[in-house]
């Protein structure tokens, strides 16, 4: 209950600060939309020259991209911790966080949230509806619930990987560029894993499981039964990675020495 209250207090504070520069906020939402459109345009242009991509049709690829946008939007809204090392460790901001009686990761999530990213969910669902209607996909009563589980699983995969990388800063505060690199590796998950070689496919499934954010869960909705096993693993992998990340974070916090300020 306490956490929920704090959450909404932060949200209302956030809205106030963002609404001060309305034009800029509109531009930011526009540029997010544009960014999502770029990838869509890429797919559309490419399929002007081919009909199949390793056995996947144009609309299926579009559907996968649409699905990917939803968990990614949730991740983008709440887990802006790619600059955790600089912002909290090097500048000593972590000291301030640790003096307060709420879990440190929860505070950082609240301080760094970017709620406008959530618009990506709407784009994602719209893209899925478009592709789904062209593919004549049918929905059963339980599909929305499955969708919810898959989305949460996917968002947790992303969150788990980034929290885990952020925890490294507790042990070593030297600057690394692993986090920005992860965003680029994450892009691999937007396309069917069959186009990659075995090594990359293995990495995307078990080590940096970005395939669970896009192609695997989408396979369930596309009725690709050969991938169902992986599809239903999505929430499991999500919770496992995120749980492990929180565990490492909690150990890391005890190792934090402070950089002075």
């Amino acid at each position, binding site marked *: 209950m306490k956490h929920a209250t704090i959450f909404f207090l932060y949200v209302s504070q956030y809205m106030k600060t963002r609404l001060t*520069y309305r*034009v*800029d*906020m*509109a*531009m*930011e*939402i*526009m*540029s997010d939309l*544009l*960014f999502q459109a*770029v990838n869509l*345009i*890429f797919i559309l*242009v*490419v399929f*002007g*020259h*081919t009909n*199949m*991509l*390793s056995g996947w049709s144009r609309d299926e690829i579009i559907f996968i991209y649409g699905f990917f946008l939803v968990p990614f939007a949730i991740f983008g809204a709440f887990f802006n911790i790619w600059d955790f090392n600089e912002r909290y460790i090097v500048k000593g901001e972590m000291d301030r966080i640790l003096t307060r009686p709420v879990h440190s990761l929860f505070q950082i999530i609240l301080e760094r949230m970017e709620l406008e990213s959530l618009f990506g969910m709407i784009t994602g669902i719209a893209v899925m509806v478009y592709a789904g209607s062209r593919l004549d996909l049918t929905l059963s009563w339980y599909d929305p619930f499955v969708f919810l589980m898959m989305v949460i699983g996917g968002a947790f995969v992303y969150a788990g990987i980034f929290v885990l990388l952020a925890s490294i800063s507790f042990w070593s505060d030297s*600057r*690394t*560029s*692993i986090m*920005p*690199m992860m965003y*680029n*590796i994450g*892009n*691999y998950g937007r*396309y069917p894993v069959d*186009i*990659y*070689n075995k090594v*990359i496919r293995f990495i995307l499934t078990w080590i940096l499981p970005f395939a669970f954010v896009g192609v695997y869960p989408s396979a369930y909705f596309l009725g690709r039964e050969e991938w169902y096993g992986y599809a239903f693993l999505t929430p499991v992998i999500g919770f496992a990675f995120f749980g492990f990340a929180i565990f490492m974070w909690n150990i890391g916090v005890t190792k934090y020495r402070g950089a002075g300020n």
Partner: protein
Amino acid sequence: MGKYIEMIRIRFLMMLAYRTNYYSGILIYSINIGAYYFLWSAIYGNKGEIEGLSVIQMTTYIAVAWMARAFYFNNIDREIAQEIKEGKVAVEFIRPYHYLMMKTMQGLGEGIFRLSFFSIPGMFIVSLIFPIEFSAAASTWLFFTLAIILSFIVNTQINLLTGVLTFFFFNNDGLIRAKRVVIDLFSGLLLPISFYPGWAQQVMDFLPFQAISYIPSMIFTEGFQGAAVYEALLFQVVWAAILIIPIQALWIIAKKQLIVQGG
């Protein structure tokens, strides 16, 4: 002129001090090139060529497009926006140089640094991993050199334009981000312009963006032959000249109505 060369040198040395950051940058670019390599291999499937480019030419295109990006890319739009917001720009006005020229030179210093410590070693590493073809003709290399210099000029001019617009919008992070996305798409970094449907290609002929990435990359992969090379270079020169007009106009207006919020 001497002072501007000095600015290039200083920025170069500044970048040199932080060169370790660039090793990971090469890795990031290689990851991106890899993603597109696999994607394009799947797209080509059994097709020998699409729009006149073979799969090896396409891989080369992607690799050179990303590595050339390291040269022409800079953040001077963000820097200008920052200096305007902080009011530092007021001091810049009284210094004995042209502010925009100074920013361009800093961008060039950065570009030369990245070309020598990022693009060239990066291209070497990438060519070990992926099948890439280098042209043997000296003329191709000469035209390519010209083309990336012009692509630096056009890209920097677009950055100056976005940066100077901060004088009017006060806070234009959104515009800067939007510009970056537009450039990635319409410059030919992600997709060669010739892959777009005909009507889109016609629209893009009236925009400067393909001067940034498409033209140098096509010259490098020898996708352009004969007269097409000269036409492409002319396209770049014309846009480099045209873009001076709006920059100068905005700069003059901005100077007249400058409001400094602190500083």
